[in-house]
């Protein structure tokens, strides 16, 4: 697989502040890469650098094998979709789609056929003669995607395209973007702070923090084998439970509880002794009949219940620490009740207490 976008040793600083540091990233042809992180982590900045909207301080950016580090955004073979849609408000939808093409002096017939195709793909044909003010948020974002589509480029950049939409529309349009990617097979780089978007859309996710990529991997890897405590905490909702303790003789000790680690796949091969944090996802805790099979079991008292419909989140204490358990939405439990929970250490993550790296 050839690389569509290659980022080599990218640096960016504003004055003394380093926003991106020695960043390397290779994105394959047709890949859907999501840059995920909390605000201020540099994900949008990185996207703007790829688009050429920000000048880099060092390093190189290659798109389709060409060094475009200093090329104008329009010459890079990219299309971009923005959070605020950024449509030209006084032009019709058709005008919005054609403005860039007309400016590039494309023949009229070609402009028309491209607009026709984009409108078909995005189902905005009935809207072509309308102005953006007369469109809903979802329709506007569709037009904005159309504007990237008519450019007939290989690389699509999305800068939090769904953040301005309400929850239901966001879910709908998310599916549509995924479908679009399947049918177009373009390279897509997508910035978001929404982990659901990242998990559902991405071929690979790059988790960013402080201008660096913490972990780059498939959604499964990121979810199942987070490289450090930050990633583990960031991915998953409700977030992971953490307990601090010690590994001794192949078991994790916290308070007077001992969690056996025979089935845990240590990164170094064998168990490591020392101060450790164990991370257990609320959805990996079992209750009811399944508890019998779990290598580690403990009795807890329920202190709070959050029903969400599909699931019921139960708050309790394990070794004196807050601990959340995700139960089936049908479970009938009440506050103060005793509950037996089971944990499979193979599904857990262990992190060194100091370095916070995965063991």
């Amino acid at each position, binding site marked *: 697989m050839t690389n569509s976008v290659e980022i080599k040793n990218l640096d960016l600083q504003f004055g003394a502040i380093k926003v991106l540091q020695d960043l390397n990233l290779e994105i394959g042809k047709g890949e859907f890469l999501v840059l995920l992180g909390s605000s201020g982590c540099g994900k949008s900045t990185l996207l*703007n650098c790829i*688009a*050429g*909207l920000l000048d880099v301080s060092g390093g190189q950016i290659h798109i389709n094998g060409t060094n475009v580090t200093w090329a*104008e*955004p*329009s*010459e890079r073979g*990219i*299309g*971009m979709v*923005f*959070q*605020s*849609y*950024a*449509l*030209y*408000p*006084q032009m019709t939808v058709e005008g919005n789609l054609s*403005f*860039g093409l007309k*400016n*590039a002096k494309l023949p009229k017939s070609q402009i028309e056929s491209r607009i026709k195709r984009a409108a078909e793909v995005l189902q905005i044909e009935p809207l072509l003669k309308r102005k953006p003010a007369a469109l809903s948020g979802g329709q506007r974002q569709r037009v*904005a995607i159309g*504007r*990237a589509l008519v*450019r007939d480029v290989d690389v699509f950049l999305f*800068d939090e395209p769904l953040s301005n939409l309400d929850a239901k529309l966001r879910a709908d349009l998310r599916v549509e973007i995924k479908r679009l990617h399947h049918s177009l097979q373009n390279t897509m780089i997508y910035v978001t702070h929404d982990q659901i978007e990242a998990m559902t859309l991405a071929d690979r996710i790059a988790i960013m923090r402080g201008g660096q990529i913490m972990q780059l991997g498939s959604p499964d890897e990121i979810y199942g084998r987070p490289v450090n405590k930050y990633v583990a905490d960031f991915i998953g909702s409700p977030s992971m439970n953490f307990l601090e303790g010690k590994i001794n003789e192949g078991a994790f000790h916290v308070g007077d509880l001992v969690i056996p680690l025979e089935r845990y796949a240590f990164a170094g091969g064998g168990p490591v002794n020392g101060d450790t944090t164990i991370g257990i996802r609320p959805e990996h805790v079992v209750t009811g009949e399944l508890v019998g099979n779990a290598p580690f079991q403990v009795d807890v008292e329920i202190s709070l219940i959050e029903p969400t419909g599909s699931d019921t989140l139960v708050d309790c204490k394990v070794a004196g620490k807050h601990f959340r358990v995700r139960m089936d939405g049908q479970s009938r439990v009440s506050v103060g009740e005793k509950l037996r929970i089971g944990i499979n250490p193979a599904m857990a993550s262990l992190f060194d207490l100091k370095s916070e790296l995965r063991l």
Partner: protein
Amino acid sequence: MASTRPNQLFRNKSAKIAAIPMIVTALFVFVGGTAWTIVYSFTGSGLLPRLKWVGLDQYERLWDTRKWMISIENLAIYGFSMLILVFVIGFILAALLDQKIRFENTIRTVILYPYALSFVVTGLVWQWILNPEFGVQNIVRGWGWETFTFDPLYNAEIAIFGILIAGLWQGSGLVMVLMLAGLRGIDQDVWKAARVDGIPSWKTYLFIVIPMMRPVFITTLVLVVTGIVKIYDLIVAQTGGGPGIATEVPAKYVYDMMFQANNLGQAFAASTMMLVTVALVVIPWAFLEFGGSKNRG
């Protein structure tokens, strides 16, 4: 709870009561004063208003007076040039200032500063600057260009442009600040989108940004046009209407007739003509601007 809908007249009572003095003042002073002026423009009032009807005599005399014709002509020249130039200069300054430059606040203050001066000060300052004896002409001749001539205020043909320079100096800052606020209100993503589309900057300004700034342009237009129509103090301070009557303007004509020539009827006719001129511009515009609002929702 009351079972019937309360009388709409008594909703927000305190706000309505508070607004009454202003409503009365506005009706009495503006509407009443305007009506009174129009009525008396059909009389032969001299030093004091008298209801001695003379029909359209005052208007016939007005349009036969050379000073009035020159006033109108000057207002037209000054108005059109001012309107176009102040927008062009103000917008270009704002666009330059919008490039994330250093010392933006300082530069903005310096350019806006003239607006804080009264027209009398501006008029006097530019009277001196344009004076051939010790102004620009003298300085350039001092550099060795002995034949250099720049004395607009002493040449009846172009004297009004001397006024225009002073007016631009004073007015550009305000337009710039308003335009800058408008530019800052444009979503940065629109600029980015235009760059990705490969639209050159000037085209982005012309076809995307300026149309998006329509509300700011309208506000600015109203401010600039009212400033033009009521121009008076700048003329008095800078040229006193001279040389001869080369820089007379309608507002000054009204003032001169009212307080110097003791000819109220003539002054009222002139001010009514000014009102008609403004109405001819404002009414069609108001129809275009607000008339279609029901359709647009």
